[in-house]
């Protein structure tokens, strides 16, 4: 469960007040909204990379407003990907599991499995420099999926994929959501993607710096 209560976020001269959002546990929520409205900023607040001006954020019922990003156990796929320039694709997929001291065979199995679904198995040994846009995006997606986070925050995770690859990724994401019961917050600009994937769809808008989060039915 993700709960944002009366939050104010700010970045430089930008600020957004009165954000209220609630995603139930296990739910697959899709967020849409005009470009520049503050979707990325909200996601960064949830995962702990940005501090709230005011208000609270709860994950799985626990108030995490003052927790550090490392403690929130959130899988985050940033819009700018932010891959690690010195690592190979395999190291990206292993990264979170290594930190959690997952044992080697299990780790290998999981990496292979995810790489397979995302169709990046041939890239595993490659450094991330030189990856194509869609390849890099799938690496960033894979990196956030491996360690069983309690919440997944996906910031336009499929925008650079061709129709077929995107379809496979969509299926996988729903599959993971269904099997592990992870709560997902997925930002996209593609209405059909929202339509096909979401349990619940939100549309964020704002007026004079006051947010309004509408549920689309």
């Amino acid at each position: 469960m993700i709960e944002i209560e009366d939050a104010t976020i700010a970045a430089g001269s930008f600020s957004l007040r009165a954000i209220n959002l609630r995603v139930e546990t296990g739910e697959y929520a899709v967020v849409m909204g005009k470009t520049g409205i503050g979707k990325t900023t909200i996601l960064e607040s949830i995962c702990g990379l940005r501090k709230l001006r005011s208000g609270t954020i709860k994950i799985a019922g626990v108030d995490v407003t003052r927790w550090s990003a490392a403690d929130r156990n959130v899988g985050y796929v940033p819009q700018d990907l932010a891959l690690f320039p010195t690592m190979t694709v395999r190291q990206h997929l292993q990264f979170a599991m290594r930190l959690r001291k997952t044992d080697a065979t299990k780790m290998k199995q999981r990496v292979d499995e995810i790489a397979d679904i995302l169709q990046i198995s041939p890239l595993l040994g490659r450094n991330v420099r030189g990856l194509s846009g869609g390849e890099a995006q799938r690496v960033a997606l894979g990196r956030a999926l491996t360690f069983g986070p309690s919440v997944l925050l996906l910031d336009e995770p499929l925008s650079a994929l061709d129709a077929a690859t995107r379809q496979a990724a969509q299926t996988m994401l729903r599959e993971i959501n269904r099997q592990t019961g992870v709560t997902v917050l997925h930002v996209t600009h593609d209405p059909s993607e929202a339509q096909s994937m979401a349990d619940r769809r939100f549309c964020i808008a704002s007026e004079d710096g006051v947010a309004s989060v509408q549920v689309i039915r």
Partner: protein
Amino acid sequence: MTLQRTRFRRLRDVVFYFVVAGLSANFILLIVLLLVADLLFTSPTEFIAALKKPEIQSAFRLTMTSCTIAAVLSLWIATPLGYALARYRFPGRAVIDTIVDIPIVLPPLVLGLSLLILFHQPFPFSQWLFPGSDWRLETWLQESLGFQVTFRWPAVILAQFAVACAFAVRTMRVTFDQIDPRAEDVARTLGCTRGQAFLYVALPQAWRGMIAAGTIAWARALGEFGPILVFAGSTRFRTEVLSTTVFLELSVGQLDAAVAVSLLMVAMAIIVLVTLRWIGAGLST
């Protein structure tokens, strides 16, 4: 719409290359000329003669050892310090940022003197903390640990370290300044402690800077002279490093021997620095 290859742009590229090369050449030429002037001034026999002297061989070994230790120590300190200065905002940051440059600014003789004063005069603060005390660092080291610094090899390393580290810190600071912290942030969301984010994400991106900082520290330690002379003395076979040898040769009017030893140092530096860079470049691929 017609497409024409604009000659003037290629010309301006060539002009740019020439300007860059021309400006750079000022400095490169100065150094090359200095070296050639030195080379013409000495002779191969001088060079060989210098290499054969046992005191110079001993100085060579001490120089190699001490420079390497000083460079490794510098890198060991400079990397976390440079990282802290580039990434964290903490009280006293601006002060520390300035303090770091002080060993660069202090005239060499004074740096050596300061070390002497620190080790042999009553220790700073000790009089305030324990009135009447006359605690001296060197005395204490000697009495409790049986370890002597002044006029021994530890003094050589300490003197080299004090200056080399300052340059290494500046270099690492610039390096981390230019590395986008975004990747480290995202690593944090994956569960990294700050230490892990530094070790796994920031450090591997900084390798070029670390090679540069290491080589600059090593080179600086090699060229170091004033502080060593004052703090470590120049006892043959004990604290004599090559820069001291040069001074000693110069003091008895052996100009060509001094120049020969300097060229030996230059040769040594070229070998070590090229090897270091080569290893560094190897690591990167």
